């Protein structure tokens, strides 16, 4: 599997990581190499095998649908880079 620079830019966009031209040039062969190495899995016969969903059998638990905590706005916002009026603040998204 060979990853071209356009694919690197596409993936970086999906991953929300800005990449410089030189990073793109470096990442393309690196990712190609790694993806080429994992390509060997295509050779494994998996007919009739279900994809694994849990390593140790465990049942998802349900709890009562009730409010158990809340009113901790200050704690929730304590580490926010920017918080205003009890909310996380982000750059303007609506014109």
């Amino acid at each position, binding site marked *: 599997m060979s*990853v071209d620079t356009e*694919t*690197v830019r596409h*993936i*970086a966009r*999906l*991953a*929300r*990581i*800005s*990449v410089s031209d030189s990073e793109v040039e470096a*990442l393309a062969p*690196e*990712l190609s*190499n*790694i*993806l080429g*190495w*994992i390509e*060997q*899995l*295509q050779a*494994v016969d*998996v007919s009739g*095998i*279900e*994809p*694994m*969903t*849990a*390593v*140790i059998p*465990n049942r*998802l*638990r349900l*709890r009562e649908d009730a409010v158990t905590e809340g009113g901790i706005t200050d*704690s929730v916002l*304590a*580490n*926010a*880079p*920017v918080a205003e009026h009890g909310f*996380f603040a*982000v*750059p303007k*998204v609506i014109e």
Partner: protein
Amino acid sequence: MTHHTDLGIAALRDGVRNGDFSAVEVARAHIEAVEKGRALNAFLVETPDLAMAAAEAADKDRAAGELKPLSGVPLGIKDLFATKGVQTTAGSRILEGFTPVYESHVSGRLLAAGAGMLGKLNMDEFAMGSSNETSGYGAVISPWRRKDKGNAPLAPGGSSGGSSSAVAARLCPGATGTDTGGSIRQPAAFTGIAGIKPTYGRCSRWGIVAFASSLDQAGPMARDVRDCAIMLEVMAGFDPKDSTSLDLPVPKWEASLSADLRGRKVGIPKEYRIDGVPAEIDSVWQQGIEWLRDAGAEIVNVSLPHTRYALPTYYIIAPAEASSNLARYDGVRYGKRVQPDGASLNEMYEATRAAGFGPEVKRRIMIGTYVLSAGFYDAYFNQAQKVRALIARDFEQVWGKVDLLLTPTAPSAAFALGEKSADPIAMYLNDVFAVPASLAGLPAMSVPAGLDGQGLPLGLQLIGQPLDEQAVLDAGLAIEQRAGFTHRAERWW
């Protein structure tokens, strides 16, 4: 007189209980060792006040006759565990300054059991690495040096390299680690200490910064098997806040420890003999086989045919889960924000993540994003989950014939910093023996078994059946008793 920092967890616990020394004396000795050990770069944050406060409480509890299981024992906590009021970065610059308002379940259990916290231990960024070189705060240095006196600083292993370095250098008697694909076992092997990854679900993941949620497990790293058992008993236990936490009683692993392996069958998987592994690794493995036989175990040759696919499977599943888990670092809720003038929301995300993540983390997020992207999901991710099922089935099929498995922990002794950092795949190969047990969720432990020609530690790995940590610990103890591993790094720091 023996120095307090030479004592392990059991000895410190018992010494405080018997009144041989006070918890405050113990804490003071370790706080001093941590300060003097700064050249190792093992601690990102030192918390002497917390260690001292816990020690004072332990001495008071002793006077009142109310000692707790870990009263008087100071520990290091890997920086992946959220610690209330103490910076938690997961080794990443993107979380610089993040100060949790809550305590992780596992570290909370340790503190509630009377343990003191000496500080937060350095690690590979978001636990992605096998050498500690991906830390955003500089690599940890192993206390070990090669015998040829070449002064090349060696890797302490990773990702729990701050933990392994600190325990081996006697800055703390034990530390928490986490293991996604070998991050407890490989660093333990590199530094001549013991470490166990329990069955997936034994330790709650709540409050542990997530890397690959279907693989992440916490576990103890300490100087011997008994100390690991003591710590694990406190760390394990049901937590309703983690949906994969197992609602099962925690066995009395320490009290049940026994090096008598009569009636136990130990499998030797032939696929773990791979090309290019130094002869010294093979001979320490052979030695381990003899030791277990001497302890009464029957040795059985077994086959795990899909072993060679474990590493590529891991490097699809772990990055895929990581790309999803690390989506939360967006500069909005915590950590770093980079907002160029006039940037849109998307541009802020992209700038924040570009500045905050290091190269290995970016690489893995990109791989994960790629294998999950439209058109590739089936060919990569689904295929990997099917191969993962086959790897787990290999293990299930040998459990009918044997009770546990013995393998080397890592394909080499510690390497020098910088030696493997240019080639990601060469670095990934470090975990070739560790990853299969991770993919199958099995308990697995590394114990020190000997030294190589350069005087560097080599470890042996024991892999057990689901929930059978006891068999793993017992066999680890049998090896430990026969290996008589008393070597330690000569102090240069």
